[in-house]
């Protein structure tokens, strides 16, 4: 076959056909790979630079948290959930406490609810800052990482002052909060909000107009609304596809109905839109925090709950809007002091399943961008 004939024959080939035939390249990425955000292992099936398929290999961080729950009391298990999504420990804690409170039928005092909102929104900010910094680092921009981690430090300082821990805080207890706001808490947080808003603009100036960033993210990792439904995708990834759905609005918990905030949505459902949605979410979080600090009423911070918690026989499913998506707890009680079953619905795990769908047909470099845009935490994927 002459060269001319060969190139002409290419036109007849169907899209998706591999020219390499049996020479498909199988490439292992991870578990020790800086762009997989922990210990995710991806087996790529490549045709040159093009991804024909991929498979995620999970479990490198599996600690059996759901099994551990069955041998602890309801109270003792609470600190464990912080180790799921360790970049947003407070959210996990909130979800678990809400689930147990729902089962007990406990009404959490208003002050505790507001404190919870303040801390979880701060935590969303911190989580999105980690996401932004590392996502850009994966794509090749090193500088924003220093900006976002610098600003995240102020949030961690507040956590440290509030409960003594920076990362896995265990800030909440079943029935309310363990600690009241410290002296100067409100002032410090309002100050932080004032500081952070211009910094979010700064991120935007650094990133949004950057041509490399635009080329690496526009039309990369597209997923349709129908696929989002089929894959049960939630959180910013769903909202970037144009679906205006957020657990905080759909099924408000912990007094979220008291606050005014918007749900940012995208239209293109690509990596760039997910970035825009998350950055806008940070602004909305600041809006919520300001309202919550202003509305923080005096009063008790924890409801009256028995020392030994024994929920009635039954089961509940309670979910919250964690920074990564819908974080749910399905808990079953047999009436004893220990959980019969605790199932965590991890948003990272479920969103990660769409990685193959989103990366098929794209380039290897885009897989890195798509893993970043899904915003996964392996502690939560593997549990």
């Amino acid at each position, binding site marked *: 076959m002459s060269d001319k004939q060969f190139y002409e024959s290419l036109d007849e080939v169907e899209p998706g056909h591999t020219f390499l035939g049996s020479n498909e390249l199988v490439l292992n990425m991870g578990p020790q790979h800086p762009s997989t955000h922990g210990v995710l292992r991806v087996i790529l099936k490549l045709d040159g630079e093009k991804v024909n398929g991929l498979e995620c290999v999970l479990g490198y961080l*599996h600690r059996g948290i759901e099994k551990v729950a*069955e041998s602890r009391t309801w109270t003792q298990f609470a600190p464990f959930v912080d180790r799921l999504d360790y970049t947003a420990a407070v959210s996990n804690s909130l979800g678990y406490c809400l689930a147990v409170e729902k089962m007990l039928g406990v009404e959490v005092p208003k002050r505790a609810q507001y404190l919870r909102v303040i801390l979880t929104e701060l935590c969303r900010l911190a989580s999105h800052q980690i996401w932004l910094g590392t996502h850009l680092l994966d794509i090749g921009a090193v500088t924003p990482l220093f900006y976002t981690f610098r600003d995240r430090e102020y949030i961690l300082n507040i956590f440290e002052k509030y409960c003594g821990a920076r990362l896995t805080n265990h800030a909440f207890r079943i029935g309310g909060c363990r600690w009241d706001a410290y002296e100067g808490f409100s002032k410090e947080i309002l100050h932080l909000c004032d500081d952070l808003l211009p910094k979010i603009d700064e991120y935007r100036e650094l990133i949004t107009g950057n041509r490399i960033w635009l080329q690496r993210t526009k039309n990369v990792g597209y997923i349709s609304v129908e696929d989002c439904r089929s*894959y049960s995708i939630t959180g910013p990834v769903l909202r970037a596809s144009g679906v205006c759905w957020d657990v905080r609005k*759909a099924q408000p918990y912990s007094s979220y109905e008291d606050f005014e905030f918007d749900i940012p949505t995208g239209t293109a459902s690509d990596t760039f839109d997910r970035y825009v949605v998350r950055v806008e979410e940070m602004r909305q979080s600041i809006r919520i925090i300001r309202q919550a600090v202003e509305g923080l009423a005096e009063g008790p911070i924890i409801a009256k709950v028995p020392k030994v918690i024994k929920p009635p026989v039954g*089961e509940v*499913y309670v979910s919250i809007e964690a920074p990564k998506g819908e974080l749910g707890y399905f808990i079953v009680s047999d009436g004893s002091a220990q959980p019969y079953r605790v199932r965590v619905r991890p948003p990272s795990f479920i969103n990660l399943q769409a990685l193959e*769908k989103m990366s098929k047909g794209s380039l290897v470099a885009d897989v890195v961008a798509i893993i970043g845009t899904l915003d996964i935490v392996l502690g939560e994927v593997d549990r």
Partner: protein
Amino acid sequence: MVQQLKSVYGSGICEATTFAGQNYLVVDRAACHDVLRTLDEQMSYHCLTDLTAVHYPKDALPFEVVWILYSMSANERVRVKARFADGEEVPTATDRWAAANWMEREVYDMFGVRFAGHPDLRRILLPEDWTGHPLRKDYDLQHQDTDWVRKNLGIESGQ
């Protein structure tokens, strides 16, 4: 909704109750797949939020498989539960929801419940050649597949 389902499936719907303000349906194992289809196609429960299982070793049908569905238009959740015997195959939901793929693999990994019609039913969190299913109640908390550890990690004690 319950009435409508009952008129179609009769005794296939064993129980429809509310606990702590949350609705759930206990369905016969033979009807579970059809009930899920009806809920999805006719009652707007288009999202499979979660799929999991609970082990009740003392019961005749020890494995309770739970599907948590969500309807975005009605903003309602419903749980569908069905009991299965040990070793019995559960009809897969992967034909309806792509999300069910990994969820069912996890249930298989943790409980040893097999799903009929699943395209790729392998372990997901534990290694493929691990023995035992950890979330079964008879699997001890400290139990470890010592042979696997010895063979793959080279730790002599296996712990």
